[in-house]
């Protein structure tokens, strides 16, 4: 029990809790900002909360990131009564999973290097996640590639990276302070 290495794919009690709380947080913040007057683009709502799965991924690993995005999106759709859209849930999950892949590489959350690495993976995550969701839309609704890119992928991708890039460093710096003070190792 004394091994201390961060393992990328561990899923113990701690990870269960971070995933659950992350998902609940993502859902609540998405739900709350649905009603805020933020600029939207096309049919994709502006969601500052997308930073939550990205950040939980970076802080607690890819599985936590994935579940935060996946279940979080399910829950926020349940709360709004929007139904269940598996491929968008999956896309949100991937948006947390990809940044999570660098979780082990980050030790000091407020170092410039960590922040840049985080930002880079946020772009990858948003591209991967929204890409999967948009491509699934081709399969489901029979739209062609250009349509999917213009109407599904780009608006979602651009608003998500805008939110992710701006908010992620703020959360990472704040978390660096919190991590000093408490927590289970």
């Amino acid at each position, binding site marked *: *029990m004394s091994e*201390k290495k961060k393992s990328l794919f561990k899923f113990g009690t*701690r990870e269960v809790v971070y995933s659950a709380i992350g998902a609940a947080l993502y859902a609540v913040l998405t739900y709350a900002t649905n009603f805020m007057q933020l600029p939207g683009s096309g049919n994709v709502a502006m969601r500052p909360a997308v930073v939550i799965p990205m950040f939980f991924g970076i802080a607690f690993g890819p599985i936590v990131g994935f579940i935060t995005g996946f279940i979080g999106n399910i829950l926020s759709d349940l709360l709004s009564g929007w139904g269940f859209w598996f491929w968008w849930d999956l896309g949100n999950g991937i948006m947390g999973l990809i940044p999570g892949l660098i979780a082990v590489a980050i030790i000091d959350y407020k170092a410039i290097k960590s922040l840049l690495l985080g930002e880079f993976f946020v772009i990858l995550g948003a591209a991967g996640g929204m890409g999967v969701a948009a491509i699934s839309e081709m399969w489901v609704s029979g739209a062609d590639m250009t349509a999917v890119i213009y109407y599904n992928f780009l608006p979602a991708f651009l608003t998500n990276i805008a939110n992710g890039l701006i908010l992620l460093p703020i959360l990472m710096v704040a978390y*660096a*302070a919190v991590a*000093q*003070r408490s927590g*289970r*190792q």
Partner: protein
Amino acid sequence: MPKTNAAALVFDDLSFQYNTRSEPAIQHISFSVQPGELLLIAGSSGCGKTTLMRCANGLIPNAYHGKISGDIKLFGRSVFEMQMAEISQAVGTLLQDPERQILGSYVLNEVGFGLESLGIPRNEIIPRVDETLEHLGILHMRDRETFGTSGGEKQKIALAGVLVMKPKILLLDEPLSSLDPASAHEALQTFRQLADEGLSVVIVEHRVEDVLTIHPDTVVYIDEGQVTYCGDSKGLMAIVDYRRIKLPADIVVERARNAPAPQFYPVLKPNYKNPETLLSFEGVHFQYNEDSPEVLDDINFEIHKGDVIAVLGHNGSGKTTMVKHALGLLKPTQGHVLLEGLDTQKMTVAEAAHTVGYVFQSPTQMLFAPTVKEELAFGPKNLGFSPEEIDKNVTWAIETVHLNEELDTPPLALSFGQQKRISIAAILSMRSRILMMDEPTAGQDYWNYQAFMDAILQMPGFDSVIFITHDLDLALIYANRILILYGGKIVADGRPQDVLQDELQLKKFRILPTSLLKLNMQYLPKTGSFYRAETIAHFIG
């Protein structure tokens, strides 16, 4: 230390140091707990009480890692040789905040959680849950949602979730911190009853005086990670520093006689002759939803320049709801709230914030900036102060709470007590005329909260201070006016010595008279006003 095999729990020269720390959290702890014994652990903030609990329930070393030495024996067996599941079935733990400990959405699921984890079949779980709920007298709550139950109810539910696993030892970490006095009293009675039934009960608590009412068999006092006293409660009162732990008032009087009198000069004085009104509530009614009951029921009162008001009342009586109206965070469903003569309906919260500074109960709800300095500048910046003014206010605020050296630290890295002071400074820097604080002392130790309450009330700059509290002693030491809420109505409003006179009536409002109140009432003819026990000691000299 007595060390027999029959002991339920034995600490044997136990020390522990967290991996991330350079100092041990606890050192050379030795004492034991017998079956059926009720034991109280006291000590100031950060002295290692929670750490000690974590050692006893197996979280250390299973979930927290660090350097450990010495041993803990559970009925003769070392816990370090036992599996977590085995320890958990012998040792039940009630954590400090029931809101975070409750894992089920419904009472039945919450109480059954441990049994579900153990894989016990459903048809055995349900009768065991029912039996436990029945024992605690809350069987009627079985099918309710856990969210939305009151603080006292939450605690009972969490306790049921622990007791359902039939532990032999019960650990309680600050079980009283958010309860009103009457609910705390009920909870303590339950703990006493459990001990009488043969359970070993270990209580960690800052509110020592309250716990003494159920006569703990043993009291352990911890200071900086070491046991400095272990014995009966009488002995504790003789040796412990009465400025660090709140002791019964008559004992403080005995012991403070020879110490120098405390210096306390409040700035605010009520002006009874021609009061200047700052804020007035006129027939305020409020309900959260159309179909929920009224939370405020015809509230009428005025706040005057010079008032220091303590708002008392049971859990859910509407204290927080009422105070939020002053700032326009909530608007009355009927009636008016006038802030300096203007209706809060017609102003934004930001405008009201120029006049009213409101410190929320939990500091973690508002701290976000990368440095303390930016945190303190946030309020004045929002209110449109000039950069020079902001600088001046920030400096003044940080000096008031004595945290100058932390200006460049991230507030989130500070300890809870420091964060609390930063959250107060963040309001001070807005230079509001009225200061409102929601339970400013909850979760703080006695020494710390006295220090900052003294500082705030001796500090010029406010026209009035209002605070909500469950601590009657805090109200009678610091307030010059007391408001009591009961079920959404103001049932008493006046000078402390007038409002707190009638014990029977207080009990009706779920407020329990304390030893300090009794002492003050006894000497009122001589003192003319209410004071802390140390001061009274010098009156009767």
